[in-house]
Each structure stands twice: as structure tokens, then as C-alpha cells.
């Protein structure tokens, strides 16, 4: 184990200097930020890209004939191209900028869903979905008198694929599951999930909010029909996200919101819609967000996704071993295939109390249901404390966290 944890995948100290917030203190102690599954911190290159946009070429895009508007439009389009390349989509027009994963899922539920889901149809989701991949489908089902079917999980927090196979029926019109669970860290066999659905010509949406910055996502190899993710979890700003959709699907779908930029001509008698992706981007878009997302992708590429995954796995394995030594600890989510999320409960203690006590040591973790209330109900727990790691976290921070946790447990018991 020693070999694994001391191996330098990249220079942590150097990487940490890229993130100004990691230099600050919390409650008089160095900040140990272990809430990366909620949102990631931002490197200087992203912060500067946004600053640079506002300082030098802020203008509304796709309209102005003057130079700074052209520069801003080019930067926005270039960001779309960077996203395309990052997830290996066939064409840039398959990349729709949204506010985040939530809006991306809502877009599909509203547009594709309202067009294609009929009474008695079925939509399959899983028991480990975030509320953002439950509620839009639930609302759609209520409206259309359709049914929501749930893929169950086992005690380890893994999807039961045989049950999924049985749920697929002639009534199934869509499958929507997460790539990586935000509260358990489980990496789902999404390729298999997609191919099983495709055998029956059922389209699949993958919620990739927790995945795109942990593992290489290739939407063409995955063959997902829709893939949704957020910028802010991948070192980009808040308020920008992506819906990838296969062009042939996006082209047939009606607009989600209407207004400027999504039209090709407007008269009081009839409006003609623009081509994709503009058809789904009504109004002035989040230009700074898209530019920030492009800068974040450049940054990730400069570190290397494989290096990121390897370091995060080392942190998870080490933290899992160390936390297991604490009496009364129960790890929630023990899947064989797991990303850097460590959810746990301590026998007899409330997760909220653990979170507060860790905060007094400067350690930021998330506590509660993690927007996965049905999953917590399934595990029979009110919530968990969750430490989630990013590549800028270190083994020393894990040690500090474990000590702080031991101290918290001692005080609380």
C-alpha cells in the first residue's frame, strides 16, 4: 500500500498552487476541501479566462458586426468545439449549452419527453438517481399518465442489471441513469445499459455530472443518445453545463424555450426555428461560462484525465482503508467499481453532527441525503457524511481528515 500512496503521479504542490482558494484557511485552520462531488474549485486559468473576457472582449454574440462581438462569438463557438472534442462527439452542433445537468435533463424531458411519451408508456430510471434525474421524469409521467420504473440496487450500491433487463418492455420509451452515483460513487456499466436498451430501439440519457472529470467519456463509443453534465463540477464556473444529443434526435425535437437566437425568421404569423444547437439556446447565452468551461477542459487536458483518475483512486483507496479502522464506521456504497466518493455513517451518530465537528477542524464534507432521498430510504438511513476527492487533494489531507473524524467521534460519543 505504501508504494501506491507515495507514488507521485504529478506534483501535488504545484497543482495546488493553480487553485487560489486552496491557499485559504477555514476557521483558523488550513481548508481541507472534500466536497468536490458538490462542486469543484477553480484554477487560475479558468478565473483568468473569465476575467479576460470581461476586460477585453465582452459583447453579445452572434449579432454584432464589430470586432469584439466577433471575438466573443468565436470564443463561444470555440468552447463548443472544445467540449465536442473532450467527449468525442461527432459534430459541434450536437453540443447544447445549458445551465447545468439539471437543465439538460429538463430539456430532454420537456422537449423529447413531451413529444414522444404517451399514456401507459414507461420510463426507466435507477434507485440511485439524483433528484435532478428523478423529478423531471416524474412530472412528465404525471402529465402523460406514463409510468416510472426503477432499477433496484444491491447492498453494495450496484445496479441489478438482471432486474433492468426484466424492466425493459415494449412500453419502455426512455432510459435515464447516472454514469457515477453522487452519493455512493458507484460507476455504472453505462455501455451495457445503453446497448441493452438499443436492442429494443429505446433511447438512453446518461447523467454524467459526476463522471466527465473523473474518467474519459467517449459519447460515440458509449453510444448514448443524450449525455448531460455540469461545468462547475469539472473546474469550470457555475451556471454552464452541456447536453450532448445525437443530431438526428435533436433535429426532430421541438424547442425547449423560445426567444431570440433560436429563430431563423419571425413574423406575427409564423416563426421558423434555427438549426441545432441554436434551436435549444434561446436568449443571450452564458458566454463567460462557456469560455470558462473551455479553459477548464484545457486545464484538465494539461494534467491528463488518466493522471487525475489514478490519483483520485489512490486517495479513495487510502481513505477507505483508514476510515474502516474507526470503530462504528459503515461505508455506504461499496461497489467494486467506484469513483472518489466516500459516503459513511457512524453508528449512533447523526451525520450533521459529524459535518459540523469536521468543519471546526477546517474539513469541508457534505452531510445529508445528497439529493438522493429514495436511495437513503432504501439503505434505511437518514443520510450520510460524504467526503469526495479531487486531484488537488493529498494523502496528507486524508490523514488530517481521518484524525479530525476520530476526534469528532470521540467528542460526540
Amino acid at each position, binding site marked *: 500500500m505504501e508504494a501506491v500512496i507515495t507514488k507521485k503521479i504529478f506534483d501535488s504542490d504545484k497543482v495546488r498552487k493553480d487553485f487560489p482558494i486552496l491557499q485559504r484557511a477555514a*476557521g*483558523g485552520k488550513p481548508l481541507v476541501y472534500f466536497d468536490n462531488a458538490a462542486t469543484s474549485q477553480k484554477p487560475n486559468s479558468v478565473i483568468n479566462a473569465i476575467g479576460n473576457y470581461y476586460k477585453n472582449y465582452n459583447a453579445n454574440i452572434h449579432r454584432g458586426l464589430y470586432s469584439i462581438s466577433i471575438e466573443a462569438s468565436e470564443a463561444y463557438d470555440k468552447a463548443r468545439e472544445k467540449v465536442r472534442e473532450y467527449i468525442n462527439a461527432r459534430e459541434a452542433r450536437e453540443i447544447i449549452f445549458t445551465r447545468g445537468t439539471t437543465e439538460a435533463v429538463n430539456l430532454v424531458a420537456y422537449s423529447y419527453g413531451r413529444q414522444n411519451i404517451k399514456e401507459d408508456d414507461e420510463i426507466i430510471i435507477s434507485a440511485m438517481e439524483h433528484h435532478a434525474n428523478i423529478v423531471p421524469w416524474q412530472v412528465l409521467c404525471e402529465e402523460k399518465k406514463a409510468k416510472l420504473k426503477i432499477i433496484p440496487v444491491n447492498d453494495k450500491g450496484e445496479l441489478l442489471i438482471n432486474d433492468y433487463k426484466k424492466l425493459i418492455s415494449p412500453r419502455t420509451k426512455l432510459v435515464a441513469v447516472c454514469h457515477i452515483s453522487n452519493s455512493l460513487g458507484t460507476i455504472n456499466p453505462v455501455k451495457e445499459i445503453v446497448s441493452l436498451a438499443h436492442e429494443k430501439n429505446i433511447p438512453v440519457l446518461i447523467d454524467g455530472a459526476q463522471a466527465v472529470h473523473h474518467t474519459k467519456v467517449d459519447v460515440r463509443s458509449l453510444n448514448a443518445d443524450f449525455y448531460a453534465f455540469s461545468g462547475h463540477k469539472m473546474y469550470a464556473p457555475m451556471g454552464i453545463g452541456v447536453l450532448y444529443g445525437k443530431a438526428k434526435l435533436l433535429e426532430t425535437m421541438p424547442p425547449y424555450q423560445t426567444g431570440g437566437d433560436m429563430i431563423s425568421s419571425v413574423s406575427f404569423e409564423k416563426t421558423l426555428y434555427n438549426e441545432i444547437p441554436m434551436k435549444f439556446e434561446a436568449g443571450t447565452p452564458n458566454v463567460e461560462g462557456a469560455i470558462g468551461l473551455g479553459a477548464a477542459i484545457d486545464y484538465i487536458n494539461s494534467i491528463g484525465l488518466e493522471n487525475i483518475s489514478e490519483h483520485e483512486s489512490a486517495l479513495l483507496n487510502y481513505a477507505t482503508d483508514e476510515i474502516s479502522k474507526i470503530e462504528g464506521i459503515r461505508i455506504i456504497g461499496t461497489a467494486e467499481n467506484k469513483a472518489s466518493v466516500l459516503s459513511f455513517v457512524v453508528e449512533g*451518530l*447523526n*451525520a*450533521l*453532527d459529524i459535518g*459540523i*465537528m469536521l*468543519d*471546526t*477542524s477546517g474539513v469541508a464534507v457534505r*452531510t*445529508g*441525503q445528497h439529493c438522493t432521498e429514495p436511495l437513503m430510504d432504501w439503505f434505511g438511513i*437518514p*443520510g450520510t457524511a460524504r467526503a469526495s476527492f479531487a486531484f488537488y487533494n493529498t494523502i496528507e489531507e486524508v490523514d488530517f481528515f481521518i484524525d479530525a473524524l476520530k476526534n469528532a467521534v470521540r*467528542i*460526540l460519543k
Partner: protein
Amino acid sequence: METKTIEEIEDEITEEFGFFSDWQDKYEYIIELGKKLKGFPEDKRTDDNKVKGCQSSVWLTTGIENGLIIFKSDSDSVIVKGLIALLIRVLSGRSPEEIINAKLEFIDKIGLKQHLAGTRTNGLAAMIKQMKMYAMAYKAKEQLEHKI
């Protein structure tokens, strides 16, 4: 024996917390208070008595003795229980009028407002609201009885 006013009790609490220089010590004290708070009847741990918080549950019951409101409360979070103990110390055994008018400035003074009361996670704000609502209900009831 002269009973202390709500403000006097609040001042006492503020002074007690003044001894602690860091948050960990403050919370250790709160946890200690939480552990000592006992005697909530098991059969009162019902959904009807639950004050909704996102990450912890709080149960609250009230009774009236000689025109004074008695609060009993419990939580599954020991820190929230400690905060409850402080609220009970300030508000229990008071007249409806006193409870309604209590400003509860000690929460801000000891720094807890910034840390806890502002969030929806622990139900502290909801609990204070609930306590004041009971006081208002008792006051309204009293006024009605006087009229009759």
C-alpha cells in the same frame, strides 16, 4: 426567589460562551448540554410533534403550568439537542407574552446565527418559530377565555 428575566438568562449564556476561544470548544460545550438533555417521553416522538429540518429531526411538546409554557424537546442530533437545551433554558417556564417578545439575541452574540440558524439543515430556525407560534396560540386562547 426572584426569577431571572429572559435577557438575564441570555446574558448568562453569552458570558459562558465567552470563555471559549475556538469553535471546537464551543461545540464541545453544546454537545455536553445536548447529552444532558433527557426526559423526553418516548411516546411523544411522533410525526405530529416533529419540527421539520432537512438533516436532523426535532420533536417538541408543550404544556402549560400556572399560565407558564413548559417546552420539552428532543433531537437525533446531539448538537441540535444542545441548542435546544439553550432555548429551553431561555424560553421554558415563561409566559406567552415573554416568549413572543423574546429577541433571542444570544444566538447571534455567541456566533451561532452565522453558523447554524441561517441554514435550513438543522431546524433551529423552524423550532424557534414553532415555540413562538405555541406562545401566540396560548395567548389567543387566554384572551378568548377572558372574554367569555
